[in-house]
C-alpha cells in the first residue's frame, strides 16, 4: 500500500495556483530548440527504468504527471505501468463558504478527469494502485461519471483499490445519498486488495468475481442486498485471506450474516449491526468480533472452522448465544467477553493448551461437549498417568463458574476417566464451580460396564467440582439410557 506521505497532494487546480509562467515570447531558431531539447534530457538524465518506477511510488500523482510532461523517458516508464494514482480532495468540512466549496469540488473532479485523460493519451497500460478519497454530492456530479473512473482503472488491471466516497451528510437517513459502487469493481480480475469506505454495495445484478482478491476491508459500508447475495459475495472471492468489516450496516432484509469461505484466514467484525453472525470457514485462524448492537442474538463459529487458533469476542449489550467450533484440533486461545451472554456452547477436544477465558454474568447456561477422536485408538499421552492436565482442566471449568447451569456431555468414557479429579488433587485445590446451581453430566458410550469403584470416583469428583449444585449423572450407550443416578 502507498506510504502515508502521499496524502499531502495539492490536488486543487485552483486558478490562483497556476504555475504557468509568462514565458518570453522571443522567437527561437530551430537550432536553439534542438539545443534546448537536449537540455531537457541532461537535467533529468537517463535513469534505469526501475528506479524511475520507484520514484513514482514516492511522489504525489500531480507531480508524477508533471514529470511525464518534461521527460520522455519518465513518460515512457509511466505509460508502461504507473504504480499509483492517488486523488484526495482533502475534505471540506471546515470550509463554510458555500460557493468556494462547490468550486473546489468541481475543480477536483476536473483534475481527476484530466489526469485520467492524460494517462489515456500516454497509453497507460497498467496501473498498480488507485486511491480515491472524496465527498460525494449527487447534485454536483452524477454517479455514472465516477463509475467511468473505475472502469478506466479496472481496465488497466488495477491491483489495489482504496476508495472512500463519503456522503455530503453522514447523518442523512436516506439511502439514496450513498454512492453505489459500480459492478466493474466487483469483477476486477486482478484486484488483490480492496478497501471501501462509506459507499453502498447495491444488490448485484451479475456474478461477483474477484479471483485474485486477498484482502478486503469494508468500513461504514451499507450492504443493500438480499439474503442470497451475501453468500455469493464470499463465493466470488476464492482466494481471500483477510476480511475486515467495520461499522457496516445491512438493509433490514439481511440481518443474518453468514460468512462462508474456505480460504479465509483472518476475520474481523466490529460494530456491525446484524442480528446473527455465522462463520463457516475451514481455514480461519483468527476471529475478532466486537459489537455494541443490542439486537444481536447469536454468534456461531460452526463446525467447519477447524483451524481456529485465536478468538476474541466482545459484545456489550446484547443477549447472545455463542457457539464455539466443534472440531478444533489446534490449541485455541479464546477471550469471550459478553456480559449478557445467555448461552454458551463449547464443543471440542480438550487439549491441555486450550485457553478459554469467559467473562459473563448470570443467568447463563453452558453446554460443554467433549469429543473423542474415534480414529485414535491410543490415548493421548497427557491422558495417561501421571496426569498433568488437571490444573488446566480445572482452570477451564472455572470459567463457567459464572453460569447458572452447566451441562457436561462426555462423548467417550475414556474422557470420563480423564476428567475424574483424583483424590489428592481434590484435597489440594478448591472446587472450580462453587456458584453453579445445576450440574448435569452425560456420559456416552461405555466400553464396558463401569466398575462400581470407577463410577464412585467419578461421582465424587463431579460432586467436588460443583459442591452446591443439584447434580444429575446419566450414562448412555448408543442412545439408550442404561442407568441414571440422581443426587442432591
Amino acid at each position, binding site marked *: 500500500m502507498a506510504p502515508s506521505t502521499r496524502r499531502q497532494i495539492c490536488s486543487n487546480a485552483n486558478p490562483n495556483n497556476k504555475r504557468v509562467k509568462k*514565458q518570453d515570447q522571443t522567437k527561437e531558431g530551430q537550432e536553439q530548440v534542438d539545443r534546448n531539447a537536449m537540455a531537457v534530457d541532461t537535467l533529468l538524465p537517463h*535513469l534505469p527504468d526501475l528506479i524511475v518506477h520507484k520514484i513514482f511510488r514516492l511522489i504525489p500523482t500531480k507531480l508524477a504527471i508533471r514529470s511525464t510532461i518534461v521527460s520522455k523517458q519518465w513518460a515512457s516508464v509511466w505509460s508502461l505501468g504507473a504504480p499509483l494514482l492517488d486523488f484526495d480532495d482533502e475534505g471540506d468540512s471546515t470550509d463554510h463558504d458555500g460557493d468556494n466549496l462547490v468550486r473546489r469540488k468541481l475543480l477536483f473532479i476536473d483534475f481527476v478527469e484530466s489526469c485520467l485523460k*492524460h494517462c489515456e493519451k500516454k497509453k497507460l497500460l497498467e496501473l498498480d494502485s488507485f486511491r480515491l478519497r472524496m465527498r460525494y454530492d449527487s447534485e454536483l456530479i452524477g454517479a455514472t461519471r465516477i463509475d467511468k473512473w473505475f472502469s478506466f482503472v479496472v481496465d488497466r488491471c488495477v491491483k489495489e483499490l482504496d476508495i472512500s466516497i463519503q456522503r455530503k451528510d453522514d447523518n442523512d437517513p436516506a439511502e439514496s445519498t450513498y454512492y453505489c459502487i459500480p459492478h466493474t469493481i466487483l469483477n476486477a480480475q486482478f484486484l488483490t486488495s480492496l478497501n471501501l469506505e462509506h459507499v453502498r454495495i447495491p444488490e448485484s445484478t451479475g456474478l461477483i468475481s474477484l479471483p485474485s482478491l486477498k484482502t478486503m476491508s469494508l468500513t461504514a459500508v451499507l450492504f443493500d442486498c438480499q439474503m442470497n447475495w451475501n453468500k455469493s459475495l464470499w463465493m466470488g472471492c476464492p482466494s481471500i485471506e483477510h476480511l475486515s468489516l467495520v461499522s457496516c450496516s445491512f438493509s433490514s432484509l439481511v440481518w443474518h450474516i453468514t460468512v462462508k469461505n474456505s480460504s479465509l484466514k483472518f476475520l474481523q467484525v466490529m460494530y456491525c449491526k446484524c442480528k446473527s453472525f455465522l462463520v463457516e470457514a475451514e481455514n480461519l485462524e483468527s476471529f475478532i468480533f466486537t459489537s455494541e448492537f443490542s439486537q444481536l442474538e447469536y454468534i456461531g463459529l460452526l463446525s467447519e472452522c477447524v483451524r481456529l487458533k485465536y478468538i476474541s469476542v466482545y459484545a456489550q449489550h446484547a443477549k447472545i448465544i455463542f457457539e464455539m467450533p466443534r472440531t478444533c484440533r489446534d490449541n485455541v486461545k479464546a477471550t469471550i467477553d459478553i456480559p449478557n451472554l445467555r448461552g454458551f456452547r463449547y464443543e471440542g477436544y480438550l487439549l491441555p493448551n486450550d485457553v478459554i477465558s469467559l467473562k459473563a454474568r448470570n443467568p447463563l447456561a453452558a453446554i460443554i461437549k467433549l469429543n473423542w477422536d474415534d480414529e485414535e485408538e491410543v490415548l493421548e499421552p497427557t491422558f495417561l498417568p501421571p496426569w498433568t492436565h488437571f490444573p488446566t482442566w480445572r482452570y477451564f471449568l472455572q470459567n463457567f463458574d459464572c453460569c447458572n447451569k452447566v451441562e457436561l456431555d462426555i462423548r467417550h468414557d475414556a474422557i470420563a476417566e480423564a476428567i475424574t479429579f483424583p483424590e489428592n488433587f481434590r484435597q489440594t485445590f478448591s472446587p472450580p464451580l462453587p456458584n453453579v446451581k445445576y450440574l448435569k453430566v452425560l456420559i456416552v458410550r461405555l466400553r464396558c460396564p463401569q466398575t462400581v469403584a470407577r463410577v464412585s470416583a467419578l461421582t465424587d469428583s463431579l460432586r467436588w467440582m460443583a459442591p452446591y449444585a443439584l447434580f444429575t449423572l446419566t450414562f448412555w450407550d448408543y442412545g439408550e439410557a442404561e442407568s441414571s443416578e440422581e443426587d442432591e
Partner: protein
Amino acid sequence: MSRVFKLKSSDNETFEVEEAAALLSETIKSSSSTEITVPNVKAEILGKVVEWCNKHAESEDTKDQLIKEWDAEFVSVDQHVLFKLITAADYLQIKELVDQLTQRVGDMIKAKTLKTVEMTYPTFNVEREVQEELKSLGF
C-alpha cells in the same frame, strides 16, 4: 582473513574495498572474481559509493541516529551527482543505497527543488504542445 576487492572506475582508477563493505553490493556478491570494472561510472562517483559502503559495513546498526544523520548528509548532493550515484548504486545493486537516493529524489520533487526544464530555463520556449498541456492540467 577477509578478502580485498578491487573496483575499477570507467576512467581507470582502482578502489580497494574490504570484503564486508564490498558484499553490500549484490553484483559483487555474485561475481566470481574480486576485480570488478564498473562501466560508465567515473572515479569521483565510485569513490563516494565506496565511502558509503565502508561506512555501512563498519556500523552494525543501521537504525542508529548517527548513521542516519551521516546518510542524510551523504544524499544532500547536487542533482547531477545524485543521479549519477543512483546509476552506480543500481549497477552494483546496493539496495539500501538505491532506496536512500531515490527517496531523496522523491523528496526533492515534492519540495519542488528538483530542477526540471522550466525552473532553470525560465525563458526556455517550451514546445507549444507541452505548454498547453501544462496549462490544461492547471500546473
